[in-house]
């Protein structure tokens, strides 16, 4: 066995560090090239690749279908923007009902618990079906009949249940002394909730909240089962008429255009909240 190099001076140690860093960068680069290159070669040289390229990556089908898919995607974007706002409002109301301990609110608390349990338990696709087909069948006046609106309502019901639990976790993570201090300063209970507790709670749960919104941004495609021609449905129509799957990939690319930036924002927010919490620990109680 060869003897370990004797690292005596500070410079020796620093240059050894640099050497190791260079070495690990070289190794990771080579291994990435080998792995990715190997996979790509494996796929591109497979006997079925020409057919797969024709059926999944056809440029002409992509060009023909993309404008219609894009206009379908605009419906998705409008839908999830509106639903996200509705989900936040409804979710916060439910979370507050479940958190506030006033005896007079007991029946509401029971209803809120049942609501959250049931809405989280039903598969979203089933909820869209039920709201989309059963509700208009009741023939009540004043009940919306537009399928996009009905689909939006179904998604709001489902996601507000998830989001209310996230917000409740946030509310319960705020130490009671915060509300106590607010009351001592002369704020009313409502004011202490509005200006002290809720802002802190929401800030703390933004990363998991964004996570739910990310899931919602893809689930808007479920609304297509009750008729509206959103991106995924338009892509399916093209795929079925051309016997070619490229339109589905075009739709996927559009969803990614929205979800990947959202994911990056979530990552950044998570990193920031980690830093903030880490900072508090490092400097001790302030």
């Amino acid at each position, binding site marked *: 066995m060869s003897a370990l190099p004797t690292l005596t001076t500070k410079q020796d140690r620093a240059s050894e560090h640099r050497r190791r860093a260079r070495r690990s960068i070289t190794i990771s680069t080579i291994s990435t090239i080998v792995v990715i290159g190997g996979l790509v070669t494996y796929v591109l040289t497979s006997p079925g690749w020409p057919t797969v390229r*024709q059926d999944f990556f056809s440029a002409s089908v992509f060009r023909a279908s993309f404008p219609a898919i894009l206009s379908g995607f605009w419906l998705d974007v409008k839908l999830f923007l509106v639903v996200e706002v509705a989900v936040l409002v409804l979710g916060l109301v439910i979370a507050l009902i479940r958190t506030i301990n006033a005896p007079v609110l007991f029946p509401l608390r029971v209803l809120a618990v049942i609501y959250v349990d049931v809405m989280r338990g039903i598969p979203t696709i089933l909820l869209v079906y039920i709201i989309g*087909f059963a509700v208009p069948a009741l023939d009540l006046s004043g009940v919306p009949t537009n*399928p996009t609106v009905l689909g939006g309502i179904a998604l709001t019901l489902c996601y507000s249940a998830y989001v209310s639990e996230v917000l409740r976790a946030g509310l319960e993570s705020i130490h009671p002394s915060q509300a106590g201090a607010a009351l001592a300063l002369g704020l009313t209970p409502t004011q202490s909730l509005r200006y002290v507790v809720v802002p802190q709670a929401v800030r703390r749960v933004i990363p998991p909240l964004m996570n739910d919104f990310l899931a919602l941004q893809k689930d808007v495609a479920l609304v297509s089962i009750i*008729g509206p*021609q959103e991106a995924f449905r338009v892509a*399916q129509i093209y795929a*079925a008429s051309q016997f070619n799957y490229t339109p589905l990939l075009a739709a996927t690319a559009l969803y990614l255009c929205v979800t990947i930036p959202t994911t990056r924002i979530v990552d950044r927010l998570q990193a920031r909240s980690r830093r903030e919490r880490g900072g508090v620990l490092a400097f001790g109680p302030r």
Partner: protein
Amino acid sequence: MLTVATDSPAYPPYFEDNKPSNGKGFESAVAYAIATKLGFDKSEVKWVTEPFDSSYAPGPKSFDFDINEISITKPREKAVDFSAPYYTNPQGIIVSSDSKYAHVTSLAGLRGAKIGVQIGSTSLDATNEVIKPSSQPDVFNTSNDVVAAFKIHRVDAIVVDLATAFELISEIKHSTIAGQFTAPGGDNWGVLLSKGSKLTPCVSQAVNALQSDGTLAALNKRWIASAANVPELH
């Protein structure tokens, strides 16, 4: 062994009781007739379920041929083989018998109607290109969903192949067929085979033989309602 595929649920008048192997229904009967022409006994035919969306996927297929109300079109022929057509089915328009669309005399009269169609069918293209409705048609996953939307008045009309239209109006109260029209592609139905299948010429030959010896016409008469009294709309 001959493996024949269709989707599930398989609807009348093409299949009965969602059981393709019972030989009842137009397409089930046609499949067995083709099998006989190819020299297979009834017991040598095996049925498998193949969803429409995956029937045209590249790669090896789980079936020898797929019979599933599939219209032959030029773009589709790039991805799969079709046999010679065994049936020509125009589009039918279902409306409520008490609606203002029940007595239209031209397709222009339906332009203002909200139309529902099933996904994957050529009815959507036919509707867009021939009726040119003023609002986008609603597209549903299954024909059950189209019917559900029609019953709750979400759509004023259903466009579907004429033979299915006859089946549906017997299920939906107060509905009628306002008329029929021909889709731009002609709506010839073919048996689907994998691209370049060795069986394609044999199946086509069998279909042509069934056509010329009158078997197809007889099966058609046996399983599909006569469309003679449905007005043709232009």
